[in-house]
């Protein structure tokens, strides 16, 4: 199978199953999507919907034991699934890199931040000590850290959360990856810092010609920054389409529930947010039907018995998995 040059990432029928004491746990099931060069795609869903596992599986960073991955991930023409750690190691950093969720835990607390950036440059690119240090300081400057040559010697504990996340981004960018996986990059940060970090990612993406997979539970984050959105529920894609279609013409009730539960500027102050009743399903006890059915206002008997597959919507590239889709004429009431 060959990849057309425009597609940097092709994910096909990807499933990740953890072996647990309670039986197999399908954290990601039958996920397929692709990503163009220089494109940003958003993966959204509640906590526990499989977003993080999906992004790690794409990168091949799943735990080493008690996990089964099937399907295919073609990254710039290289198959990631079923390959050895040492093969993937050759792609990590240079082809794909990840910005982790919580900068409080993703940096080594007892290693100076400069050394943590250097390391990648020296090990992966074979740079000399001096060159790596100079480049590391450049990177710190690139991600907007003031007085970078002094910060080079700082320990993570001496930096604020926002600064640490900038360092994490600098590490991810060190070897100029073609694909950046950003796993909830702003969840651990103050609201005021969130926009700064997201804008920084946007700007760097343009400057460095990267593709970005932006994983988040916050639809407000992806609204203006992505060209397409993948909506996940219980490890499966339930709706996928262009950002405009997902916001304006969504067909899956879960997507609407997600949209309605995110705060909007146009709301009057103290508007009560609409929440989604119930909680995400226990992945060990999935039924044969649609996983969202128990929480869905539109659920019929069929929904409880048979799982809907993704079906094509009117607009090209827009699909949804629902037996009782919302009517098309919803217009642009949301967002």
């Amino acid at each position: 199978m060959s990849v057309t040059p425009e597609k940097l990432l092709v994910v096909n029928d990807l499933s990740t199953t953890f072996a647990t004491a309670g039986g197999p746990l399908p954290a990601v099931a039958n996920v397929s999507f692709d990503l163009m060069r220089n494109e940003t795609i958003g993966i959204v869903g509640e906590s526990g919907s499989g977003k993080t596992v999906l992004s790690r599986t794409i990168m091949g960073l799943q735990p080493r034991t008690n996990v089964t991955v099937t399907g295919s991930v073609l990254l710039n023409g290289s198959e990631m699934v079923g390959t050895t750690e040492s093969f993937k190691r050759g792609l990590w950093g240079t082809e794909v890199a990840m910005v982790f969720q919580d900068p409080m835990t993703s940096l080594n607390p007892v290693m100076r931040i400069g050394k943590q950036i250097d390391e990648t440059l020296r090990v992966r690119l074979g740079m000399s000590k001096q060159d790596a240090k100079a480049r590391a300081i450049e990177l710190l400057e690139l991600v907007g850290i003031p007085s970078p040559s002094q910060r080079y010697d700082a320990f993570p504990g001496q930096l604020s959360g926002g600064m640490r996340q900038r360092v994490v981004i600098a590490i991810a960018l060190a070897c100029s990856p073609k694909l950046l996986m950003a796993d909830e990059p702003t969840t651990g940060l103050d609201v005021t810092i969130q926009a700064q970090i997201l804008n920084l990612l946007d700007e760097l993406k343009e400057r460095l010609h990267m593709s970005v997979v932006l994983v988040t539970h916050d639809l407000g984050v992806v609204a203006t920054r992505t060209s397409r959105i993948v909506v996940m529920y219980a490890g499966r894609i339930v709706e996928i389409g262009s950002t405009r279609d997902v916001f304006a013409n969504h067909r899956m009730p879960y997507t609407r529930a997600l949209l309605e539960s995110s705060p909007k500027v146009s709301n009057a102050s103290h508007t009560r947010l609409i929440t989604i009743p119930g909680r995400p399903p226990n992945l060990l006890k999935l039924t044969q039907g649609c996983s969202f059915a128990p929480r869905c206002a539109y659920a019929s008997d069929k929904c409880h018995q048979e799982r809907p597959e993704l079906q094509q919507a009117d607009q090209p590239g827009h699909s949804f998995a629902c037996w009782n889709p919302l009517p098309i004429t919803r217009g642009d009431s949301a967002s």
Partner: protein
Amino acid sequence: MLRYVIRRILMLIGIIFVISIGSFFLIHLLPGNITAVIEGPGASPENQAKLYKLLGLNRPIYEQYFVWINNILHGNLGTSFISQTSVATTIGNALPIDLEMMFLSQILAFAAAIPMAMRSARKPDGIVDRFFSAGSFTMLSVPPFIVVILLVLFVTYKLGIPHTGPSSYVSLRADLIGNLESMALPAITLALGSFVIYFRVLRSDLIATLQEEFITMARSKGISQRRIMWRHAFRPSSVALLGAAGVNIGGLLAGGFVVQYLLNIPGLGYTLIASINTDDYLLVQGIVLVVSVGVVLINFIFDFIINIVDPRISRE
């Protein structure tokens, strides 16, 4: 960091002061009259009273303490009434033997414990880990005096190398090879006990550290497993190891006497037992003081190392 060190040094001085008072009064708690011991059996009460006065024992106790501490600060621990030799000289001859024994045993213990813990932690509950853990647990349950006897039996009967005899110890200055031969068994015995502690502490901390997000992050950089273990996991996992080492090494300084006694190594522990048997009060007092200060100093040094290894500790 500097403030932390200064605070610790002040604390250290306070602790040593308390220790000095403790070891001074320790002697006064002992039953019996010192003058009777010195004069030997059949001493006349007049002579005893004269000696009592000569030794300054009739002066107030706090005055006695200040005379004593002043002498100690000038390196004078007194002269033994039994052997008529300077206590400081006796200790000065014995202490290097303890230090060497400790040094050798700790090198062996760390050299075995660190790589084995690394290997175990990579696959917890794997075959290698189970083997190492079971082995270390077995050793943990065998006390050193049994280990020593088993080792001696093994070396003499199985390997056919003659060992022991009262004068088996060879000093380092006399003969390096002979010295290492005579030190091998005590060092190995103490190393086994230390190894078990270090292996178990480091293994469990490594396993915990390897679950951390920053390890996954290090993995995502595309660096080797080996580098992740040594550069990223080892240092944050070694705080408890260093803490355990500080306590353990202090314990060896104070508690190595069983091994020394069984193997005729004339270190501090051996000398201490001998001096207790001969009622050599001043020597007992001197050794207790040196060992206590040593234990405190060792703990201080390890505290300091821990702070360098994990800068988060002194920052809060």
